[in-house]
C-alpha cells in the first residue's frame, strides 16, 4: 500500500502518509492536524475528510471513533467574496 497515493483531504491534497507521520510525532488531536496540514480547511470545510481522519486517529490511539473529537466548526460554510460581504454590510446601520 502506497500511503502517499491515498488522498484523505481532497480539497487540500493531504495524503494518508502525511496524517500518519504527524500521528507518530504525537499530533493526535484533529485541531492540531488541521493547523499543521490544513485538513478540513478547504472548500468543503471537512465535510468529506473528517470521518476518515477520525478513523485514523481512532485506530492510532486504539480508542472508539465516538471518542475522537472533531474540529470546531466556524462560519462560513463555503468561500464568499469579501466584496459580497462588504456590499451586504453597506446598508447596515
Amino acid at each position, binding site marked *: 500500500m502506497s500511503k502517499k497515493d491515498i488522498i484523505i483531504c481532497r480539497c487540500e491534497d493531504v495524503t494518508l502518509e502525511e496524517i500518519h507521520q504527524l500521528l507518530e510525532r504525537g499530533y493526535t488531536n484533529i485541531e492540531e492536524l488541521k493547523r499543521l496540514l490544513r485538513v478540513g480547511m478547504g472548500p468543503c470545510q471537512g*465535510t468529506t475528510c473528517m470521518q476518515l481522519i477520525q478513523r485514523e486517529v481512532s485506530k492510532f490511539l486504539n480508542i472508539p471513533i465516538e471518542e475522537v473529537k472533531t474540529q470546531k466548526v466556524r462560519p462560513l460554510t463555503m468561500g464568499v467574496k469579501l466584496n459580497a460581504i462588504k456590499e*451586504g454590510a453597506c*446598508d447596515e446601520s
Partner: protein
Amino acid sequence: MILNRDLVIIGAGPSGLCAAKMAAEAGQKVLLIDRNPQLGGQLIKQTHMFFGSEKQYAKTRGFDIAKKLIDDVKKYPDLVEIWDNSTVVGLYSDKVLTVLTGETYRKVQAKAIIVATGASEKVLAFENNDLPGIYGAGAVQTLMNVYGVKPGEKIVMVGSGNIGLIVSYQLMQAGVKVLAVIEAAKVIGGYKVHASKLRRLGVDIITSCTIKKAIGKDKVEKIVTVRLNEKWEEIPGTEKEYEVDAVCIAVGLSPLTNLLAMIGCELKYVGELGGLVPVLSKDYETTIEGVYACGDASGIEEASSAMVEGYITGLAAAKKLGKVHPQYDELMVDLRKQLDILRSGPFGEKIRKGLAKLEGVKEVC
C-alpha cells in the same frame, strides 16, 4: 440591512418541504432556503418507485414525489417565501443567518430555525482515490438522472446498500455495464428485492470484498479489489482486476450538521445514524431553544422518515411561534405512529439502536 423573518427552514428536500407545508398549514410564515436551482433535494434524482406506505407516496417515483411536495408549499404563496440558489453560509447563536445568493450576501434575523440540510456522502481511502472517473453515487445520479449524461461505459459499484443497488440498476437501464457490485460486509446491505433485480440482469454482487486501489494515468483505467476475512483484513492472493472507466462509491451518508455545530448545538457521534447527530427533544428541537433539525441532518434514514419528521418539526416550530395547527394533537399522534411503523421490522433495527444510543432524548420507538 437585516431582514426579519419568523421561521426559516434551511434545505428544501423532503424534510424541509414537509416542514414548510405543515407550518404554513398552521398559518405560520416561512422562509424556505435551498442552495440548488431546483427544490426537492435528492428526490429529483430518484427515478425509481418508493416503498413504504401510501402516506409517504409509496409506488410513486422520487421526482414525482418532489413535484407533489413542491406543489404543497406553493399552495401558500402568501406564507411561504422561497429563496432558491441560496446557500446559508453562516448561522449565529442570536439566530442570525447569512445567506449567499450568487454574489449577494444577505443577513436574516429569524425567530426560529429548522435545519433540514440532509447529508453528505462518505468516501473511502484507497490508493489513487483522487483519479478522475471515481464518483460518489450522488454525483452519478445527478449526471445520469438530472442531466442525462452517462458517467462511463464500464463501472464497478462499491457498496451494496439501497443506494448502491438502485444506482447500479439505473446504470444498467442507461446502458452502462456494471461489472460487479462489491460489498465489504458479509451480507448485502440493501433490500433483497433490489439485489434480486440486479442478479437477474447477471450482475455479480460480491460480499466480503473491497476496493484496494485504482490504476490509471489521467483517469481511472483499472481497479483492483480484494477479499476480506472475518476481521475485515485483506486476504493476500485474492486480488482481482477490473478494467473500468468509472467507479461509483456508495458507502453511506453522514448527516450534514456543520450549521448546527456552528451555533453550538450539542452533537453526539452515533455510528448507526451516520456520524455526528444533534441531540433532540421529541419535537426535534436541538439543545438551543428555537433551533430544530429534521430529516437526514438529524440521522440517516429513508426519505419517507425524513418527510414525517419534517411534518412533526413544522408543526412544533409553528406552535413555538404561536401558530397552533387546528389538528395539532391528532396530527402529532398519527405522525409519531407513522414513524414507529417506518422504523419497525429488521431494516429499522439499526435506526432503533442508534436512536436508543441518543438515550431517549430523540424519541425512541
